[in-house]
């Protein structure tokens, strides 16, 4: 069985980045090439996903022809399809937007190659079926993200890369320790094989330690409560297009890892671990959003909102039922689209007013109604209000939370939703409604296509809100596939 197509979402960006380094002189060609490569990648992902849906099984590729668990198996199921698809979609959107944002002469030569390396890392982590390979994938995306961050931020901001790097290096260290523990304990690194072997020792305390360490590793990537420190100071130093991509994708990789490992690999009976996630979800939801009120810059506020919504996703993860995971997955999809578009809107504001400090912008409600409309829609969407996309998973989460008796969680969810709304209203009042604010700079007419690109993203998320059924079904099917360990094992292990 050789479904080599699976490797293309990974290898295409890698090859693209080589080509991008090579033709460093042809600036326009680089841009066309990168977009073309992303579209090609999108095509392969669509083909793969339709195949998965049609056959209702996951696609497996044994790299090098070595059967699992000895070689590395790449697995592509519906969850991978959704995540990789959104990743490429957002990459296209943010790149196109970025082309308008940064003048072509000022774009750093290594920006595009590093961006593509990062995409390769992200896609690999969505596709791989091997724990150590996942580590490698994380390293690819992390170091690429370090590089991109220090490349793109302004010279006096580059130092803020350091906390990001340091915390993530600690995370990598713990990941290595976890791999050692896993290999010692289970004697294998393949997900399916890990699943088979861990079922034999569900009462072994060592499995719990392994689980907690995995929560640490993925929680650090996914910005769970006491581990999110790297996030709020690092994302805002990026230029907004890149920041939008980071905010949308990078934390989700950690969340994806949690879903994959707790759904597909580890036995579902490790309830204490789920409880740990639930316990961490509450402060993540509430503290994240509260900090948002102390910030003035729109991107800072969005970053703290992002943390709070990771808490919402964690809630679905911790409740760990099919419905709650479906809700989490849907929420994740919604959140990636919305947070990215809000970052892009912030970018437009920066272009227009020279700053995204909400005290300094003002009067946008009057001067640019289109932008205000986009912001209002996405702001309401972010807070989970109907009929926008965030609302549908919220229902599912409330339902599951109530039926499992986690009232505090439901309450925190609602509180965080209300607080998100307030923080959006905060931006709305200061940034859009107030007219007295002094402008830092004279307004600059922005590049029209950029609004179009941001508008596409808003439209997509609006569509998701108004007609959620297909995506809801998709995430339901994906969750079912993730939770069906028996099928996964029999598919991967020959």
């Amino acid at each position, binding site marked *: 069985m*050789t479904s*080599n197509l699976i*490797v293309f979402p990974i*290898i295409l960006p*890698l*090859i693209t980045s*080589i080509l991008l*380094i*090579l033709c460093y002189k042809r600036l326009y060609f680089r841009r066309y090439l990168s977009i073309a490569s992303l579209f090609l990648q999108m095509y392969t992902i669509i083909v793969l996903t339709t195949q998965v849906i049609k056959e209702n099984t996951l696609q497996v*590729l*044994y*790299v*090098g*022809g070595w059967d699992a668990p000895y070689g590395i198996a790449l697995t592509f199921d519906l969850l991978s399809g959704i995540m990789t698809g959104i990743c490429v979609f957002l990459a296209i959107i943010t790149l196109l937007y970025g082309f308008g944002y940064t003048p072509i002469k000022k774009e750093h030569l290594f920006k595009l190659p590093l961006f593509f390396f990062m995409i390769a890392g992200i896609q690999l982590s969505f596709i791989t079926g091997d724990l150590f390979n996942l580590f490698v994938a994380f390293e690819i995306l992390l170091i690429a993200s370090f590089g991109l961050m220090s490349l793109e931020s302004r010279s006096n901001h580059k130092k803020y890369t350091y906390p990001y790097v340091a915390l993530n290096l600690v995370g990598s260290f713990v990941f290595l320790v976890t791999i050692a523990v896993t290999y010692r304990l289970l004697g294998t690194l393949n997900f399916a094989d890990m699943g088979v072997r861990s079922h034999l020792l569900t009462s072994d305390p060592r499995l719990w330690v392994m689980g907690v360490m995995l929560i640490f590793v993925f929680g650090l990537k996914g910005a769970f409560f006491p581990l999110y420190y790297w996030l709020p100071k690092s994302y805002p130093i990026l230029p907004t297009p890149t920041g939008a991509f980071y905010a949308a994708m990078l934390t989700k990789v950690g969340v994806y890892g949690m879903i994959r490992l707790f759904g597909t690999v580890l036995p579902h009976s490790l309830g204490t671990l789920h409880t740990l996630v639930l316990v961490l979800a509450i402060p993540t939801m509430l503290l994240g959003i509260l900090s948002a009120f102390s910030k003035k810059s729109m991107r800072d506020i969005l970053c703290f909102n992002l943390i709070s919504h990771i808490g919402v996703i964690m809630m679905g993860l911790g409740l760990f039922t099919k419905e709650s995971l479906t809700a989490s997955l849907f929420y994740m999809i919604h959140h990636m689209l919305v947070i990215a578009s809000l970052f892009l809107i912030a970018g437009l504001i920066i272009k227009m007013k020279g700053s995204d400090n909400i005290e300094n912008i003002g009067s946008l409600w009057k001067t640019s109604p289109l932008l205000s409309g986009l912001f209002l829609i996405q702001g309401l969407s972010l807070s989970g209000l109907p009929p926008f996309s965030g609302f549908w998973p919220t229902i599912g989460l409330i339902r599951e939370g109530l039926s499992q008796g986690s009232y505090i969680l439901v309450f925190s969810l609602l509180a965080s939703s209300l607080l998100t709304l307030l923080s959006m209203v905060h931006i709305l009042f200061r940034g859009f409604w107030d007219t007295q604010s002094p402008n830092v700079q004279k307004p600059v007419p922005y590049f029209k296509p950029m609004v179009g690109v941001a508008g596409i993203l808003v439209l997509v998320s609006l569509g998701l809100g108004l007609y959620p059924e297909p995506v809801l079904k998709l995430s339901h099917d994906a969750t079912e596939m993730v939770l069906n360990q028996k099928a996964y094992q029999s598919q991967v292990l020959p």
Partner: protein
Amino acid sequence: MFHSIILYIVGRFLFVFINLAALYLLIRGHNAPGGGFIAGVTTALSFVFLTIISKSGDIKKLLIVDPIYVMITGLSIVYFLCLYPTFGFKAVLTHSQFTPLLFDVGIYMVVVGVIGSVMSAMIHNTEQLP
């Protein structure tokens, strides 16, 4: 940097010797300790060594080409080897007769290129500064 003519002559001699050793490590890697990475680091070290004792202090001159190109060539070899088996409808990265060695060569080039570049950048820039 630390230029002295005797050191330089000895260095050149050592340079050739070290590189031969690296080649040996590269080739025998599949069967004994060694391999692309180890050989690559060895070669890179020899270049760095030679750079430090040479007059100009520039690896780029010694390597004739920019190490980045060496790196890219190596990387291309590796990625090509990933895709090559798919033309024969085999799984990605399936090895045949000589490809393991080629794979090692690719790694070797990448390592030489990376270490060479980063060292050259550090040497170059630290000298430039006041």
